[in-house]
């Protein structure tokens, strides 16, 4: 047992000094490898955190949202539509919502104004998301101004800055009173942005949505599960732009691994011959190459995952921003809440470390099975 441990120790020692003497080659391999893992891990962290965030938001979202659609375009919904909806069997409650977007040309950012259903906001005051607070350097007691559709600049006092629990929701939000928002947005009295429904039995949601379409032909019911599915479809492993990035990264990894698999230098082959001649077995050579592959791939894996974590959760996926967040003006400062799916990390490990380690062994196996007398010839 001790002998076996010592043997492993000797081989690891030898492997490390082997790696150090081909610094240039091995560091370039390590660099490329880390880059590939970094890309893959960034995509994984980004998508899973985004989906997690979306799920967090949507779990508390209403089961059915009813909007009004005129000529295929969104239109404010009359509040008295709610009475007809409340009469549908299975509908527990109908609430009107007032909310909308506001584009701030000065900061080139979109804000979401919302009239909260609970904890009403005092007239003349607003509560703002952390993102807006950072962008506009506005804190409690400051005054922010927005232009209403009639061109009048209207000012509100910041009552509070919302917590950062979920930046996706909170970052760009401005909570405002009903009266103020009607003035600021120009939504006429008796109308709302949309109506939200809660239903008794979630299995009946689809049926209720169909009934809504029949009763109010100009309405457009949106089911929560559909939104969740859309998020999944866009940011899931198997779809959207993610698959493109993953494919490119995986393809580059395959090319890189293939290059390694076929590229054992004459010097390396010579050394394997020497080691065999002085008394190493084929298995010793393979074990050494295994440690070599493991040392590089584990280092690259850890470094890549760590860098990806920093990239996604501390730099707000700076490299992906232009690609993935074309709608990023919605969020003045978008920072995902750190979340890691352990299964995905394990998958990444098996996608990168294992194949690389194997590809380092295969060419070594070919070289290690040569006759030791080759060094004599």
């Amino acid at each position: 047992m001790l002998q076996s441990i010592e043997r492993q120790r000797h081989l690891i020692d030898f492997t490390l000094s082997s790696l150090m003497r081909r610094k240039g080659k091995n560091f370039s391999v390590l660099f490329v490898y880390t880059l590939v893992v970094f890309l893959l891990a960034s995509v994984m962290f980004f998508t899973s955190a985004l989906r997690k965030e979306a799920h967090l938001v949507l779990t508390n979202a209403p089961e059915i949202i009813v909007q009004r659609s005129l000529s295929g375009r969104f239109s404010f919904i009359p509040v008295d539509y709610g009475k007809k909806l409340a009469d549908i069997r299975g509908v527990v409650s109908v609430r009107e919502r007032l909310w909308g977007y506001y584009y701030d040309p000065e900061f080139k950012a979109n804000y979401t104004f919302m009239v909260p259903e609970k904890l009403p906001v005092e007239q003349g005051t607003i509560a703002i998301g952390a993102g807006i607070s950072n962008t506009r350097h506005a804190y409690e007691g400051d005054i922010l101004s927005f232009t209403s559709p009639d061109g009048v600049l209207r000012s509100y006092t910041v009552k509070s800055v919302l917590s950062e629990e979920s930046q996706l929701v909170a970052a760009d939000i401005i909570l405002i009173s009903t009266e103020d928002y009607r003035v600021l947005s120009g939504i006429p009295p008796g109308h709302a942005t949309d109506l939200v429904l809660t239903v008794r039995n979630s299995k009946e949601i689809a049926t209720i949505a169909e009934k809504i379409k029949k009763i109010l032909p100009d309405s457009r019911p949106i089911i929560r599960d559909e939104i969740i599915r859309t998020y999944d479809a866009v940011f899931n492993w198997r779809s959207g732009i993610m698959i493109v990035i993953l494919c490119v990264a995986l393809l580059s990894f395959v090319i890189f691994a293939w290059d390694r698999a076929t590229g054992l230098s004459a010097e390396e082959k010579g050394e394997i011959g020497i080691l065999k001649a002085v008394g190493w077995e084929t298995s010793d050579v393979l074990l050494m190459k295994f440690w070599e592959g493991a040392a590089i791939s584990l280092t690259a894996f850890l470094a890549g995952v760590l860098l990806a974590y920093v990239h996604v959760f501390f730099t707000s996926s700076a490299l992906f921003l232009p690609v993935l967040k074309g709608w990023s003006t919605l969020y003045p400062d978008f920072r995902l809440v750190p979340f890691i799916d352990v299964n995905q990390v394990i998958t990444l490990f098996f996608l990168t470390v294992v194949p690389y380690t194997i590809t380092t062994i295969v060419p070594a196996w070919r070289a290690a099975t040569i006759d030791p007398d080759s060094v004599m010839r």
Partner: protein
Amino acid sequence: MIDIRNIRKVFNQGRPNEFTAIDGVDLTVQLGDVTVLKGPSGSGKTTLLTILGCMARPTSGRIFLLDREITSLPERFLTEIRRQTFGFIFQRLNLIKGISALENVMAPAYPAGEKFSSLRKRAMELLDMFSLTHRAAARIEWLSGGEAQRVAIARALVNNPSVIIADEPTAHLDTRLSREFMEIMKKLKEDGKTIIIASHDPIVFDSDLADAIVEMRDGKLVRVGATR
């Protein structure tokens, strides 16, 4: 005693470039002796050395090491025998570049799993024996020709083999270093080592160290004779 009987070694058998390197050789190497294989380039000396040192298998014939037949042992056992019984000194030294002299000396013993401290101590003793203690940490490429050769000899001795096999050891050495090499071989012989050297250098085969001279030509033994 190493005994080989009717050994043949054919390379590229069955192909147009088939080549018989050794053709029906019988030879007995006595333990404790210095045996010199002599002959021109291409006479089969090196091939015979590889067969004697369990590095290569003969195409036909039988090999006995201390009366035990080892001809058809699996690679694993053959490697173990090679590691425990033989120490090799190569024509081009074949030291591993980029690592230290000490690591080169220790490398053949790594698979045995000996305790690191005792292995290192033994390797340092060997380097000390060849006045190389101060060069232990030096990389191979930083050593002079003579130093590199002594490191190669130290490496051959690290597993304390009973047989030293040297292939054209003086081919790349000047006269002074060649004589130095023979002095070291003399000391090893005095320590009871069996030494087999392939060489066509007169400094080697004319030396009074050789107990037996085996002359080869075209893969066959031309003459086997004791020097005394």
